[in-house]
């Protein structure tokens, strides 16, 4: 039973509602007939937010007709009733008027879409797969998945690519998220996840946040930051911008974009020089320390200060604050990872944590904050080009044998590793990949260097896309499959702590809409692999996933739907159904490398890939705003969020000579676009910032460079050379491709003394879907 029983009392957060003293509201405590769900005949369905990697628990309010109509806070371990504006408004996508409810099809991109039957859309897709693979080979067809999908679906994506499509080319948009951290964690610790649960933040003495705008990207995590600070912990924020959490930090280091590893190498240099390393830990539990120590000797604060554009004293101060306490933690996100040296940046932070003995203890450790809801779980079970289920390597013969046995295929049939998401676009440009299926991703907004992305997709002979709204990428497709939103299906996601949580179904999908699972299995059946894809629902996929992960580092075997419904989630590895899960790693001092040690890695800083010049003297860096999520395909349709942040802007320092609202042209080697200026002292004078949630002509990713980290293949979103110049006018924010209408919020003609902003957000179109 996934629905809460009607009349079930709301969970009560004891911290906000114990009996009080002042008045009748407080005097009697909580009346027996207190507010409860069925007073309006509604049902509360416990589930989680569909957005970021915090995975806040929430209730969806379901009316008597079975429709989701609202949200109610839920006292879940992770968020203790807290929600951010995206989470509060997420329910509005479920019955949004822009939902796709019929497959769309056209034979070439010049034609308008026409609504077709599922049979026709599936048959056409399969015939195109057969045609392309028949003419050019199996690897001429690719599959791109998404990290917003439940883990069951990501498992299916990987299996479908290798078993039904028989192609090596499968990857996912989590490639654009935390793969640098994943690569670094795997190299150092032999396991790809954060070392500590969020709750450990409450126990730390010093918290270092690097390259993470926690306040806007993961707002609910800030309760842990403040909890730590209330108990006396210091907070260090390393970020080129004064983000909302940097504003009140004990120390904000505003380093130049693309210089993180030089900075952290230098901090470790000071730690070594001041004798603050944990030599006993290093001797007992690590390899490679001597080489790392030798390398960081070349990063004295004077050199790093010049590279990073920060005062030497701050480097020394960070070293003393972090290494001078018993328990310190470092958390980082895309600001550190979105670089051509993303893996190195993460390794330099790991080196600092390990050298100071801050590993595997309550309040001491490291973590990466996942951007997408299932950014962590999305790659664990075979959706990433080089991984098989359970995090197995597709290049490892033993791992290949194990999976082929589970899948019931011959080992020779299992393709080798493919390429990464950006590389697949380049391959489409070169006509090496001629057909593509995309599942719940939006590369037209989310990949760097838009012109290249558009060219790659336009060159593809066939493109099908799964989505529930017509995204900018789906608008380029030949076939669009309308699929369920998260609240119309059940499945699991792994959050940034590697805690597996279960999402529950709150309503039936609209007529004409199918689950991703159903569509994948139907395609597989038509491709002749019906016996390998007999999955009537998510649960049946999860049962195979559990078996496929058993015995691996990413062991899910002990996790069941029933256990997840009884608990607040279970962190993997969890090898058997009695196992409590593993919220904190390395408590016994052993890592997941065969020798049980941390393999420290030497890191050398190198400049970003897009060189500065007289023509391009500034750093352009990109990121998120609190009201929007990733490519904005979901949040740019929700009235309250559009009203909160209707359009992008360029953040510029006053020294660049603009006034607030001035049209500013941002120019890079890829192109130029015009944004209104937000003039603020909260950014470095040599750096400009543009949020990336919008498509062209106001797309930050039309300007960013498609240079990749050589190991993680993550693009270098967070730094490229740029200049800014005055412009005459600001380009309009385009409406989403279909946009028959946004969710109408009834906040019309409401006025304080001064009128509120108009309800209709700027730039919204009203055109019907063609």
């Amino acid at each position, binding site marked *: 039973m996934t629905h809460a029983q009607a009349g079930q009392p*709301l969970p*009560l*957060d004891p*911290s*906000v*509602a114990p009996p*009080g*003293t*002042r*008045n*009748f*509201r*407080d005097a009697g*405590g*909580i*009346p027996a007939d*207190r*507010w409860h769900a069925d007073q*309006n005949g509604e049902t509360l369905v416990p589930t989680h937010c569909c957005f970021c990697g915090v995975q806040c628990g929430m209730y969806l309010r379901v009316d008597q007709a079975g429709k989701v109509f609202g*949200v109610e*806070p839920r006292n879940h371990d992770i968020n203790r*009733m*807290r*929600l*951010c*504006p995206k*989470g*509060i*408004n997420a329910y509005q996508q479920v019955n949004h008027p822009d939902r796709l409810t019929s497959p769309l099809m056209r034979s070439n991109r010049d034609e308008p879409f026409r609504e077709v039957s599922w049979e026709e859309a599936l048959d056409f897709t399969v015939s195109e797969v057969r045609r392309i693979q028949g003419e050019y080979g199996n690897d001429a067809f690719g599959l791109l998945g998404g990290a917003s999908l439940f883990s069951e679906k990501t498992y299916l994506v990987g299996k479908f690519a290798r078993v039904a499509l028989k192609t090596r080319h499968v990857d996912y948009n989590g490639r654009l998220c935390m793969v640098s951290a994943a690569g670094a964690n795997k190299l150092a610790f032999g396991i790809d996840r954060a070392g500590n649960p969020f709750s450990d933040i409450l126990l730390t003495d010093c918290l270092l946040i690097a390259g993470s705008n926690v*306040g*806007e990207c993961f*707002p*609910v995590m*800030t*309760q842990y930051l*403040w*909890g730590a600070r*209330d108990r006396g912990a210091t907070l260090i924020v390393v970020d080129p911008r*004064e*983000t*909302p*959490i940097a*504003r*009140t930090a004990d120390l904000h280091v505003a380093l130049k974009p693309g210089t993180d590893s030089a900075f952290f190498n230098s901090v470790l240099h000071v730690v070594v020089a001041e004798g603050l390393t944990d030599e006993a830990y290093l001797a007992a539990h690590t390899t490679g320390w001597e080489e790392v120590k030798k390398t960081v000797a070349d990063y004295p604060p004077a050199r790093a200060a010049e590279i990073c554009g920060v005062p030497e004293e701050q480097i020394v101060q960070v070293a003393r604050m972090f290494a001078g306490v018993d328990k310190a933690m470092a958390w980082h996100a895309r600001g550190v990872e979105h670089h051509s040296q993303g893996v190195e940046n993460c390794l330099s932070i790991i080196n600092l944590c390990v050298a100071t003995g801050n590993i595997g203890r309550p309040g001491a450790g490291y973590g990466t904050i996942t951007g997408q809801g299932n950014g962590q779980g999305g790659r664990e079970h075979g959706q990433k080009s080089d991984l098989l289920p359970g995090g197995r390597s597709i290049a490892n013969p033993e791992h290949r044998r194990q999976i082929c046995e589970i899948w019931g295929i011959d080992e020779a049939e299992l393709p080798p590793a493919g390429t990464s998401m950006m590389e697949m676009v380049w391959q489409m440009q070169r006509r090496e990949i001629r057909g593509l299926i995309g599942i719940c991703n939006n590369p037209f907004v989310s990949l760097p260097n838009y012109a290249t992305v558009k060219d790659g997709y336009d060159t593809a002979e066939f493109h099908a896309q799964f989505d529930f709204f017509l995204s900018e990428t789906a608008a380029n497709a030949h076939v669009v499959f309308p699929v369920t939103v998260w609240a119309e299906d059940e499945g699991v996601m792994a959050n940034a702590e590697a805690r597996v949580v279960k999402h529950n179904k709150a309503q039936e999908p609209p007529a004409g809409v199918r689950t991703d699972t159903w569509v994948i299995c139907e395609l597989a059946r038509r491709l002749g692999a019906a016996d390998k894809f007999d999955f009537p629902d998510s649960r049946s996929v999860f049962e195979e996933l559990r078996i496929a992960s058993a015995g691996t580092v990413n062991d899910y075997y002990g996790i069941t739907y029933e256990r997840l419904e009884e608990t607040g989630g279970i962190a993997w590895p969890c090898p058997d159904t009695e196992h409590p899960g593993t919220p904190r790693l390395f408590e016994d001092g052993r890592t997941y490398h065969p020798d049980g040690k941390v393999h420290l890695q030497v890191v050398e800083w190198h400049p970003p890939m897009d060189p500065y010049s007289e023509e391009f003297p500034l750093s352009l860096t990109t990121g998120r705003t*609190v*009201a929007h999520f990733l490519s904005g395909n979901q949040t740019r349709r929700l009235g*309250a969020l559009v009203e*909160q942040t209707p359009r992008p802007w360029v953040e510029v320092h*006053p020294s660049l000579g603009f006034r*607030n609202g001035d049209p500013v042209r941002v120019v890079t080697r890829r192109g130029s676009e015009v944004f209104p200026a937000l003039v*603020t*002292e*909260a950014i470095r004078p040599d750096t400009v910032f543009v949020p990336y949630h919008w498509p062209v002509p106001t797309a930050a990713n039309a300007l960013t460079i498609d240079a990749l980290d050589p190991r993680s293949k993550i693009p270098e979103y967070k730094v490229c050379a740029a200049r800014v110049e005055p412009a005459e006018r600001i380009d309009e924010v385009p409406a989403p491709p279909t946009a028959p209408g946004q969710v109408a*919020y009834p*906040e019309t003609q*409401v*006025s*304080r*003394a001064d009128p*509120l902003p108009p309800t209709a957000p700027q730039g919204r179109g009203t055109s019907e879907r063609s």
Partner: protein
Amino acid sequence: MMGRTIFIDPGRCIGCQACVSACRECDSHRGKSMIHLDYPDEGRSVASLPTVCMHCEDPVAPCAEVCPADAILVTADGVVQQADTSRCIGCANCVNACPFGVPKIDLQAKLQMKCNLCYDRTAYGLAPMCATVCPTGALFYGTLDELRAERPGVQVADSFTFGATTVSTGVAMVVPADKVQWPVPGGLPIVEVNGVDVR
């Protein structure tokens, strides 16, 4: 001793507007937010400040005092309610009288709306929606003792000066420890008078 109320801690506000969105979800004025967010030092800082109804205690509810239709009820426990729709004439006197800029007027319906401390929830022991969801605890609902149990040494103020007038409120504001000895100025800080920096 201050009872259960909202405490506003602007130091923790990240400007996310979760409170604004949550207020829209409240059943008593569903779809409309009664919270506004200010950016007091825009251009220099990302600082932000949520404003909810302060539930003025002394003088009791200026909005209610000036209401010609006697539409604004102040309950025995000090909660200043939204205007009674059967009496409200939408004259906006309350908007002009409020020192904190809280009440809003629905021009089409000619009705006033304001934060009522989520009376439908607080009357039953739940926290208001805004304070329930606030990710940082910038809006906290509870007693001062509960606040201090979480945030040792925190100092709050519940009186505000507007020129010669001091207003005591049911909702309190967290202030820096050295500023708690005197009432907090209402509105934005005065930084300049006749060209002279008075900070």
